[in-house]
Every structure is written in C-alpha cells, then in structure tokens.
C-alpha cells in the first residue's frame, strides 16, 4: 500500500491505547476529546493568523507593495500583534442593538467554520473526525455560518449591516446549490462521501485527471461558487467596503470582529482543503499511473506537505480572484448563479453520470 511511509494511524492508535490502559474508558474518552479540542483550537488559530499574514503579503506583492514588514522578520508577527490589539480592544455596546443575538452571532460563525475544520484530513490518520458522509457534512455545516452573519447584521441596529446581511443571505442560499451540485458531480465519480476514502481512491491519479472534462468544469464551478459562499471578493457583497463601509460586521469591534475575520480566512482554508481533497487527492502525493519510480520519489515527500501545498495553491488562486476583479452587483451575482453556474452544473452532473456509466474515466 502506498503512503505507508507517513501513516499516522498507528501512532494515534497507540496513544489511544496508552490512555485507555491507564484510566477508565469514560475518562480516556473525555481526556482525548479535550486534548484534540485544544490541539485543534491552537492549529485553527495559528493557520488563521498565518492566512491573514499570507493574504496581506500576497495582495501586497500583487499591488507592487512590500506588505507588513515591521513586526518580526518580514513582518511575520504582524498578525499576532494585530490579534493582541484586537483582544485588548473595547467591546463597544451598540445602542438599541439586540444584545443576545449581537453577542451570539460571531460565535455561530466561528463554530460553523470550526466544525468544518474538524473534518479536514491533513494526512493519513490525521483527521479530527472521519465521517462517512464527510462531503455532505462540510456542505451542511458551512452554510450554518450564514445564520451568524444574518443575525449579526440584523441585531446590530445599523442599516449598512442590515443590507449586508440580507445580501449575504440571498447569496449563500443560491451559491450553495452550485457548490452542492459540483460536489455531487464528483461524488458520482468517487462513489463515496467519506473524505479518507476519496483520498485513498486517488492513489493512482487525482480525480481532476481521472474525471477529465466534467471534473474540470466541476472544479471551475466549485472554485467560483465556493468563493462566493465564503463571502470573498469579487463576491464580497456582504461586506462591500465601498458601499456599506464594512457590511454585516460594521458595528463589531474587538474580539468579536476578530471572530468574523478569522472565520472568513478559515472558511477559505476549509474550502481549499475540500477542493484539494476532492479534486487533487488531498494529502495523496502526485502519482502517475504506472510510473513506479516517479511515484516512489513522490512518496518521500510527507503527505502533510502535499496537503498544505495543494490547499495553499488553491488559496492563492482565491486570493488572486479577490485582488484582481471588481465586485459584482447583487443582481449580477444572482444572475451568474441562476443563469450560468446552475444550468452548467446540472448539465455537468448528467455528463458525469454518463461518463461514469460508460466507464470513460481513467
């Protein structure tokens, strides 16, 4: 079996065995949950902070600037400084805002992105929870974030926020369809929704090559629709800086704003991880059919590096979208979905089903 070199399953199992040997089953489970939770929290925050830094650097380079370069080497600790600043900032109480919902909204947003983060397979055996409906779970949970956005916009007693939130609602409801359909297209090819299995199936070639034309169309639609779903430019109508100042999070400050901010970046990470998993084989190294020597060399690169490289490359593309294109208008956004993406992806589902039926994939 390929990929044995860096298999974490054994390690995790032995840690589990040690815990269960030294205490009762209940305590072992609780303790494991706690440890995993803390590890995930830390990784979540670290990746989030790094992504903020990366985005700032990428956009700076695109815009012929240097970007953050004062705190730490090459400004590497800039986001940590920003984070500390946000922690220390005052949580402003908004007059006539709905207090409970106002405070609840950022938590809903961050919990939604955190739940999806739990299913991301970093390497073989390194996955928070390997559901047999993994793809479906990510889809379902990630759209929960919009509830938080709607609540935040509605409860902050600001017209800008309200407009932003309503836009976001309309946007996510429609783009969910395309994301779902393009994933369905791939599920037809894979025959499973379990993320770990999807990756295993790509050990002799990524699905983007296996599924050729329908997979490529599905990838393009997935990239566009998921960029829209995570409210990033050019689909950032919910924030729409030049129109609505900051959209749904205009009134948020301090750590609550940081939650919105962080969850945006983490959603981007989860989306690229999902795309990397479904289309580009997740942590699976680049394997080409029967080139044994080549495949062996590729196997020496740890899967976690493969995974990070793939998802960061995809994130770079999403960032490039944001820093290149002007923003769409709300009716154009909906038109793009209902007039272009949805029909094409429906057609694509049929095409993929046909391809699979005829066994025209590799």
């Amino acid at each position, binding site marked *: 079996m390929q990929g044995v070199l860096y298999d974490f399953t054994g390690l995790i199992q032995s840690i589990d065995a040690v815990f269960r040997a030294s205490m009762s089953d209940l305590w072992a489970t609780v303790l494991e949950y706690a440890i995993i939770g803390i590890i995930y929290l830390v990784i979540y925050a670290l990746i989030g902070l790094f992504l903020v830094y990366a985005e700032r650097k*990428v956009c700076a*380079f*695109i*815009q*012929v*600037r*240097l970007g953050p*370069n004062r705190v730490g080497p090459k400004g590497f600790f800039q986001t940590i400084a920003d984070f500390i600043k946000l922690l220390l900032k005052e949580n402003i109480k908004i007059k006539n805002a709905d207090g409970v919902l106002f405070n609840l909204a950022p938590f809903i947003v961050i919990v939604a992105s955190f739940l999806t983060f739990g299913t991301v397979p970093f390497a073989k055996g390194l996955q928070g929870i390997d559901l047999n409906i993994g793809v479906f779970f990510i889809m379902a949970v990630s759209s929960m974030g919009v509830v938080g956005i709607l609540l935040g916009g509605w409860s902050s007693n600001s017209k800008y926020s309200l407009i932003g939130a309503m836009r976001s609602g309309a946007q996510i409801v429609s783009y969910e369809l395309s994301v779902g359909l393009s994933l369905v297209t791939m599920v037809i090819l894979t025959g499973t929704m379990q993320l770990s299995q999807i990756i295993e199936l790509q050990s002799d070639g990524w699905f983007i090559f296996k599924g050729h034309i329908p997979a490529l169309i599905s990838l393009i639609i997935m990239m566009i629709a998921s960029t829209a779903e995570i409210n990033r430019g050019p689909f950032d109508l919910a924030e729409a800086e030049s129109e609505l100042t900051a959209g749904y999070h205009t009134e948020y400050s301090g750590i609550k704003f940081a939650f919105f901010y962080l969850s945006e970046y983490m959603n981007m990470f989860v989306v690229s991880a999902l795309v990397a998993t479904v289309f580009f084989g997740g942590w699976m190294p680049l394997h080409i059919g029967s080139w044994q020597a080549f495949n062996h060399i590729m196997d020496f690169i740890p899967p976690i590096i493969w995974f990070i490289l793939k998802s960061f490359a995809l994130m770079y593309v999403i960032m*490039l*979208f944001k*820093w*290149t*294109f002007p923003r769409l208008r709300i009716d154009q956004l909906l038109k793009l979905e209902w007039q*272009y993406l949805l029909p094409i992806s429906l057609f694509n589902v049929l095409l993929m089903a046909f391809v699979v039926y005829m066994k025209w994939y590799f």
Partner: protein
Amino acid sequence: MGLKSYLSGLFKGFYSLLVGLRVTNSYFFHPSRIVTQQYPENRKTLKMFERFKGEVILVHNENNEHRCTGCGICEMNCPNGSIEIISKMETGEDGKKRKAIDKHIYHLSMCTFCGLCVKSCPSKALAFGNEFEHAVFDRAKLDKVLNKEGSVLMKGVE
C-alpha cells in the same frame, strides 16, 4: 437569448477574467517590480528635488550673513500673513541710519508654499528649503525666526 450567444458570452467573459488574472499573477511572481520606498530607513539616500518647496528659508552664507534688508515686500506679498518682519533702525558704517531686520518671523503652519515671497524678494534673500519633516508636538515650534542669531546683512546688498 440563443445558445450561441449564451456560450460565446460565457467564454468571452471567462477569457477576459483570465487576462486580468494573468496581469496580477505576473506581478506576484515578479517582486522586483515593487516600488515601495522604505521611508525612515532610506533617509540617507532620500534626496528631494532642488526646487522642492519644503519651507521658506533665509539664505545665510558661511560668515553668517544674509541678504535681507527688511523691506517687507515678502510680508506684503504673502497671501496668508505667514511672514512677519520686525525691523529696527541701525546705524551703518557710513553713519547713516537705515532700516534693518530684527526678526524675520515665519509661520510655517500658515504657509501655503505659493512662492510669492521668494519670487518677489528684491534682494533674493529668501529661498525654499528641502526640509520636509515638519512634524512637531507643539504648534508654537512652527513659528520660526528665519534670521540666525547674530547674523548681519551681506555687504553690498541694498
């Protein structure tokens, strides 16, 4: 909308987006085109153009002499009242009494750098300096006395 125009619109639009992406992408992979100046670090090499209007100065030579006769034309020409001249009567070497400058006060905070004082000065005493770091914590520091301590009128300037 026919299928043909639908598809051609789709592909044309998609292509135009790719063209845009190519531009930004090429910038990302060519960091040598970055134009940012690292300001406080490049202070030593940073040179303003000689005509740069940073502030008005009264030119002094190495003997602490200036050319200002205290005629007050710059004061009259200044549209904002940012120049005040306090003159005194002085006895020259030939025993004649004449007007001379006591204080040439320049309010940098009011100056709009229109250049009328420099242009109108009949004895070419004023000039623009290149200093541009004017930030101070106290507004009073922006009221400057341009003639240096103990400076005298250059010989031969009337």
